[in-house]
């Protein structure tokens, strides 16, 4: 017998659940925004400037000793942590006052304390104040531009209610994922932006599949009330939604466990984003359409006869 995650004749009244899912999402979004503005993200050097040095020591490293030696260098805030293995150490040094040149001296000064020891400098990353500002800007623009471009695409393919619904759903996912970054104080770097954009892509992918079915069913069952059509559509796509989430999660969990320390926060964000994305495409995306008064006959070309181009686009 083949595995069925969702039994064949599932009929869950999802639309009714919006009474739970809407307040829950609003709560999470507010909490995330509050965290973002009050606590703030743990920005990595990509956006804050500074230095990261990863070293491999001969045998387990004495973190305490390294920490106290580093603090004698007067480099401001210095963090030393184990990175995956006891002989793998990650050193973060905050951005130094005094412009671009000041950052460069950090590496050479840190090198001096390991002189004579068998230490392998596995990774050195230095981002100066100018670049970090630009990267932050580019990252913000990337997220905004992606949302906007997708908004237009969906608007072009569907009715405006769908476009707004898709953007709200996606924005919900993005904000809550950012909330996770705040909560766990994960390093927010360039690859986190990549993770956020992937979540946008994935969440929309999910939402679009649901919307596609809604559009189809709205044409098929013109007489049925909207709530019923929406419920039917979600139930019909539920099996696919969960299957795809599961396979994607399987791959991502493998990456999280075996993919190495460097991309772990990247994968963690994606795993979380996919869970949230799945949740939102089931519990938020469709109910939004009720909120915006999508009429059951919105798909009927006769109704907007004067707007010929519109009906062609949606037909």
């Amino acid at each position, binding site marked *: 017998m083949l595995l069925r995650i969702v039994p064949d004749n599932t009929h869950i009244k999802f639309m009714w659940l919006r009474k739970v899912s809407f307040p829950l999402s609003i709560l999470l979004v507010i909490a995330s925004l509050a965290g973002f503005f009050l606590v703030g993200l743990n920005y990595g050097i990509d956006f804050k400037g500074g230095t990261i040095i990863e070293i491999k020591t001969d045998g387990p490293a004495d973190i305490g000793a390294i920490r106290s030696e580093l603090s004698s260098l007067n480099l401001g805030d210095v963090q030393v942590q184990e990175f995956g293995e006891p002989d793998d150490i990650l050193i973060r040094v905050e951005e130094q006052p005094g412009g671009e040149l000041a950052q460069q001296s950090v590496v050479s000064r840190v090198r001096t304390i390991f002189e004579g020891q068998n230490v392998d400098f596995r990774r050195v990353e230095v981002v100066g104040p100018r670049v970090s500002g630009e990267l932050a800007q*580019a990252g913000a623009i990337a997220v905004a531009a992606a949302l906007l471009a997708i908004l237009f*695409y969906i608007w072009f393919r569907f009715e405006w209610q769908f476009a707004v619904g898709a953007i709200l759903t996606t924005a919900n996912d993005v904000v809550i994922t950012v909330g996770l970054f705040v909560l766990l104080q994960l390093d927010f770097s360039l690859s986190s932006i990549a993770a956020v954009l992937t979540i946008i892509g994935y969440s929309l992918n999910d939402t679009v599949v649901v919307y596609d079915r809604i559009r189809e069913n709205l044409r098929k069952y013109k007489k049925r009330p909207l709530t019923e059509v929406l419920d039917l559509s979600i139930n019909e796509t539920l099996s696919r939604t969960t299957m*795809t989430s599961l396979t994607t999660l399987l791959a*991502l969990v493998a990456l999280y466990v075996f993919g190495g320390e460097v991309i772990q926060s990247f994968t963690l964000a994606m795993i979380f984003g996919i869970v949230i994305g799945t949740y939102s495409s089931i519990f938020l995306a469709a109910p939004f359409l009720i909120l915006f008064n999508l009429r059951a006959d919105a798909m009927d070309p006769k109704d907007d006869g004067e707007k010929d181009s519109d009906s062609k686009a949606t037909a």
Partner: protein
Amino acid sequence: MLYFARWKIALIVLVVAAGILTTLPNFFSAKQLESWPDFLPKNQMVLGLDLQGGAYLLYEVDKQDYIQKRMKALVSDIRTTLREEPRIGYTGLGVQGEAAQVRIRDLTRLADAEERLQPLVNPLVSNLFGGQPVNEFEMTASDDGLIRFSYTEQGLEDRMAAIVQQSIEVIRRRVDEIGTTEPNIQRQGTDRILVEAPGENDPERLKDLVGQTAQLTFHMVDTSMSGEQALQNRPPAGTVVMMSVDDPPFPYLLEETPLLSGEDLVDAQVTFDQRTNEPVVNFRFNQSGARKFAQITQQNVNRPFAIVLDDEVISAPVIREPITGGSGQISGNFTVEGANDLAVLLRAGALPAKLTVIEERSIGPGLGADSIEAGKLASIIGGALVIVFMILAYGRFGIIADIALMANVFLIFGALTVLQATLTLPGIAGIVLTIGMAVDANVLIFERIREEARAGRSAVSAIDAGYSRALGTILDANITTLIAAVILFQLGSGPVRGFAVTLAIGIFTTVFSAFTFSRLLVALWVRRRRPSKLPI
């Protein structure tokens, strides 16, 4: 949907075969590939710095430093011009902020001075579109006799472009000389230079080589007082104190204007001093340089002169006898590598302006190798989990989806290899994500087939309807992801770009393998078995 013309079948099989064939070289070492026949593809994937190890350095031209230097030169030009007969009296000549200025004493001669200084604004030749001629500097004169020169926007932009261009050439010459890696050196924006050296395992040395201005100058040492004295008091006019490279540094009092500079050098080589057996750098001047050098050494026998690199004194030997052969020697407690690097710098020439590192990322080869291993392991385990899961969920159709998935992975790697796109660590994550999402298209189709079958369709008709109805959804879903990938590529840099590339390639290969290729497999199966009931 289930009928395929022969040529279509051939084409689909050909695409998959091409994917496998172009991926294959990645499994072999470069040495093994040499023995392959010529008609087989031999290109291997390009690994990003994070996987291969290497250095990424972003430099910016130090604008302020350059403007200061240029203005100083302008000041000396103004001085010479105003001193030409008949002299024009002036005062307060110097650099003020980002401008050079001078005050003409006799206001009746202001117009005269303006006319004389006018050529110094230095018209730019690059004015392609006619229109108003553009100058490097803007000259303004006020009624009280003050004349100011400052950069025009266009002038500064032009200068920066020229400096970046020139610097790139110098850096290329330098890096080519050490010859260990094949770096990518390119201009970024208006005043930045990116140096990427994959596989470079000594980024510190690369940085030393690339970032040094390497301006070599020769100065006479002023013996009227010692360096320490000059440091404590004020150095006499026309002289300057420079520190030596020794540890601790030692101050020298030097004449400010250099006698000669590195521009007159034609060659520099490392040799060993016959007496001390220490490495030294032998240099040779061009004709005019040799003549000047001969003249200077003749006039200054038994006086010390200093060899200065970027405002640091390397050595200050005493001239024992006139040197007329046009060659000389720099000795200064070098290591062999240090002497070698200096020779390289001198041969490649000085940078036209100071460069500052504004972003640096270097990854050791060990970390890169570890990342590749981790990525491989994660991909294999992730892939295996998905494969097993699909068989559990869809049985025979799951196997078809799995074959399509493997074809997909080959196509991604093949495309990456053919396009010579860079594979980065986030790129590997992109591939793993694609593996997870690739089956989405198949899931969409199979779920649709199940539905159609439940609605009472026959097996073949349900399959047909499943594929055709799922297509629109598959396209919509993938186009939205593609939009995100394209924007990522446009706005991202380095590793993020690598991620965007694999994501975008993955979308195309996914639509092909999960929709077209799997449909062919299903069609072939249907044609052979003629099923009346669906095994799904």
